[in-house]
């Protein structure tokens, strides 16, 4: 029994797996039982502010503690996809962004985006883009995407933002 995730999803695992295998994409809303708790725990971990004007400005957490902290989610995603996905947390404040720069690495295979920001108003920016398509990621949702290759970005966070945007991206481990 997974404990971080809303119980319904545990029960609907097979149905979700079927949708994902058929459609290649599935959005799971009200995903975590306590997104606030998970977010606060992540925000306590060591992280690094990264800035390259042509690529991104954001804070990234790849701390060793992130994996065990989110192990319930990783296990659930493994049940759905058959793949082990590892998390990276991205925290964006006013003025932060990422761009589809020419040298940005493409994601290969399965990727999941888990939105765990506090209250977020789309007027503040911060939308998720997959190549040139904007995706609405509701609060406390997880978007699971299976593609051969894609690039993603997060729209600029403007001066109206009253909080930080927190997104955890789960990726397949690079195969040796």
């Amino acid at each position: 029994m997974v404990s971080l995730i809303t119980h319904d999803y545990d029960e609907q695992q097979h149905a979700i797996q079927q949708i994902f295998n058929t459609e290649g994409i599935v959005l799971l809303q009200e995903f975590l039982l306590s997104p606030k708790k998970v977010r606060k725990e992540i925000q306590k971990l060591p992280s690094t502010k990264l800035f390259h004007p042509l690529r991104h400005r954001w804070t990234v957490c790849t701390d060793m503690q992130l994996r065990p902290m989110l192990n319930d989610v990783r296990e659930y995603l493994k049940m759905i996809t058959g793949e082990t996905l590892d998390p990276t947390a991205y925290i964006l404040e006013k003025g932060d962004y990422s761009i589809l720069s020419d040298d940005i690495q493409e994601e290969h295979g399965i990727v999941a985006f888990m939105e765990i920001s506090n209250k977020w108003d789309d007027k503040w920016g911060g939308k998720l883009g997959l190549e040139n398509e904007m995706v609405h990621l509701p609060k406390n949702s997880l978007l699971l995407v299976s593609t051969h290759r894609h690039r993603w970005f997060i729209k600029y966070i403007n001066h109206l933002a009253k909080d930080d945007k927190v997104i955890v991206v789960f990726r397949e481990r690079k195969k040796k």
Partner: protein
Amino acid sequence: MEFEKKDEPFAHIIFKDLLSSVALHEIKEIIESQPFERKSADLFDLEQTTDLSDEQSLSGLREKMLSLKEIIKNELGIDVTSLDMSAMHYQECDYLLCHDDQLEGRKIAYILYLAKPEQGGELLFRSSTEPYDVQVTIPPLENTLVLFEVSNKSLHEVSEIIKGERLSIGGWFH
């Protein structure tokens, strides 16, 4: 015609009070009557017109711009023969993130400011070797024209509009 040329972080020329006040007023009226379309991508949120190169009412402005060919040649060492033109309108929260404008055929970028926002909307230049700090900040003063050579060094952006609106005509000499 008076202008200021600077070389860092990349060569650029600034003309203040390019047009007469009558001409500026006329052009603002023409631009404000054009249809703008909202454009949104990873790099920007802003409004833009279609290409105004064939807009008859702007022929005087195009001639004025093309008359700068000699200055461009003398100061930047670049021959240009034509230009394209569109208008950009930034509202509160609009922005244009860092990029270099490089695309085939583009030799010189230009921006003529028609309306300045109350806060934000500055043109920022960064060094390609040390891009983490802004090296030059150019406020979008009405009737100011900025020109610079397009290259992998011409890193520039428009800071977010915090208050007011920014209106400009811009494009590239080819």
